[in-house]
């Protein structure tokens, strides 16, 4: 990592360490009593083993990946739009993914059995939804200059509303079994994750991470403005394509697996910037790590607070995120 200074490396390594500790904790607590230590060192009953490997492990793994995805895509979109308020939830990218997934569950069930658990086509339709929204927003907010910050959010309201309408109509026209699939999916959260369901998705997320981290330096230079970046030798169209597609993949997959979880993409990159700096070579990996930490903790909290019942994890992230959002607006106004 040539563009990352030693202090930033320290933060990245610390984040890795904290993530490992948090993962250990998350694997050790839950409604059913079985811990990470048990798994490693002692004989477990059949039930314990299956709770650990089939339920808890996939769930923790998924929450880590979704947290990393949302935070990284937030950082990427904030870079691409040159807008500190770009969050996949706020600007409608997640809603686009949700509409894509819903369309597939309802309309696709006519052609494919079990559309709601299809490990390839469900994420793919979400990806199409989010890719469409990002591209559309990009062209809508072009040429607004400094006011683009506001217009992006306004456009986000419209996209969110439009997706709401679409999902509403699809819900209305769906038959009984489609509706069941839809409800099952909407409840989302990280529960019910199985390795066979999330496996292919996680591979795609990893692939997108690698793709986007390679573009980190270009995202830095893009902050000078598009024409400046071009004059410094950056193929803007190619960069835009990379960022849009990879963000769409990571948001689309996350939404298709766990529903819409707000504010992670907003809070985490800002936290990373405050802690270590604004260059994307640092920002993208550290956002991924911190996003994973935050999400694993939030999910741990969600399922142990009132066990054996659980809170929706989106409730927790929004509880943290919304005051932060207000603080951010306040800060932007001051500068």
């Amino acid at each position, binding site marked *: 990592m040539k563009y990352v200074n030693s202090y930033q490396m320290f933060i990245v390594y610390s984040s890795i360490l904290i993530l490992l500790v948090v993962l250990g904790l998350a694997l050790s607590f839950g409604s059913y009593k079985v811990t990470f230590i048990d798994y490693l060192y002692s004989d477990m009953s059949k039930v314990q083993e299956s709770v650990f490997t089939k339920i808890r492990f996939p769930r923790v793994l998924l929450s880590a990946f979704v947290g990393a995805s949302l935070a990284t895509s937030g950082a990427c979109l904030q870079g691409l739009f040159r*807008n500190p308020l770009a969050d996949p939830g706020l600007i409608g990218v997640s809603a686009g993914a949700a509409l894509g997934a819903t369309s597939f569950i309802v309309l696709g069930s006519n052609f494919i059995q079990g559309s709601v658990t299809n490990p390839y086509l469900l994420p793919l339709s979400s990806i199409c939804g989010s890719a469409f929204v990002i591209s559309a927003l990009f062209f809508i907010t072009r040429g607004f200059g400094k006011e683009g910050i506001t217009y992006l959010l306004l456009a986000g309201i419209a996209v969110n509303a439009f997706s709401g309408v679409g999902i509403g109509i699809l819900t209305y026209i769906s038959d009984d079994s489609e509706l069941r699939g839809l409800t099952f999916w909407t409840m989302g959260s990280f529960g019910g994750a199985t390795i066979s369901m999330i496996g292919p998705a996680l591979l795609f997320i990893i692939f997108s991470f690698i793709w986007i981290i390679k573009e980190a330096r270009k995202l830095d230079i893009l902050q000078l403005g598009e024409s400046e970046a071009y004059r410094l*030798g*950056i193929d803007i169209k190619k960069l835009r394509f990379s960022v849009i597609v990879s963000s769409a993949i990571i948001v689309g997959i996350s939404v298709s697996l766990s529903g819409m979880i707000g504010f992670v993409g907003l809070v985490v990159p800002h936290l990373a*910037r405050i802690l270590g700096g604004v260059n994307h070579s640092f920002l993208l990996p550290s956002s991924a790590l911190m996003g994973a930490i935050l999400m694993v903790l939030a999910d741990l909290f969600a399922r142990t607070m009132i066990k054996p019942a659980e809170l929706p994890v989106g409730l927790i992230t929004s509880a943290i995120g919304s005051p932060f959002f207000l603080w951010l607006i306040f800060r932007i106004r001051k500068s």
Partner: protein
Amino acid sequence: MTIEVNRISYGINNFSILRDVSLEIKGGEILSIIGPNGSGKSTLMKVLAGDIIPDSGSVIINGKNLNDIEISSRAIVRSMMSQTQNIVYDFDVREIIEMGWLESSIDQANGHFENTIKLISNECGIDHLLKRKFNSLSGGEQRMVHFARTLLQSNGLQKNLQKYIFFDEPTANLDIKRELNILNVIRKKAKEGYGIFVVLHDLNLAYNFSDRIILIKDGKISKMGDPNDVFDDEILSEVYEVPVYFDKDIGRIKYY
């Protein structure tokens, strides 16, 4: 080795901005372009940089058509300083300058990189600002930082390549010390062999600073050549539509 501009025309919605413009930028020479507002100066520079593709005509850089040069190679052969937009995130001054570094890696081991940054920031009088946040600087200081970034971009290792630097009103809104600073560095760059192309607004500056001058109006070149030929009372008065008197002895124009 030159930049050869052949019969460029460009327009938007039937309104022509550049009409049949031809010129040549040579290494070691400062070529300035002057003209009234809206005469097409900045547009011409954008065509040269490749930001805009003209409706007709061609730009040949060192014998190769601009359209056939890869975007990354264009950045090596020409650098450009223009009026920039604000930067949203809080980069350090040093990080902004480093963005001009085109080598694919920062080779900190051999010290070449460190030395170059030091040398250039010293040259631009901003070495004391390197650790500051870019957004906390004044407008003039920010401009000097962009100037340094442009110099770093043109400072790559390809020694045998004829390179060019474009400046779009580099001294606008600068105090006289910084103005002189920028002008001296540009002069020095020309002496080192770079081909320099500058959009200027200040006529006195253009006369005293350029090797050749292009006078442009309504997208058409009115006069091109030695400053003493271009600075003719009649031509200037006609182009700027106000009576202009040029005093050759002190090299200054009078228009009020």
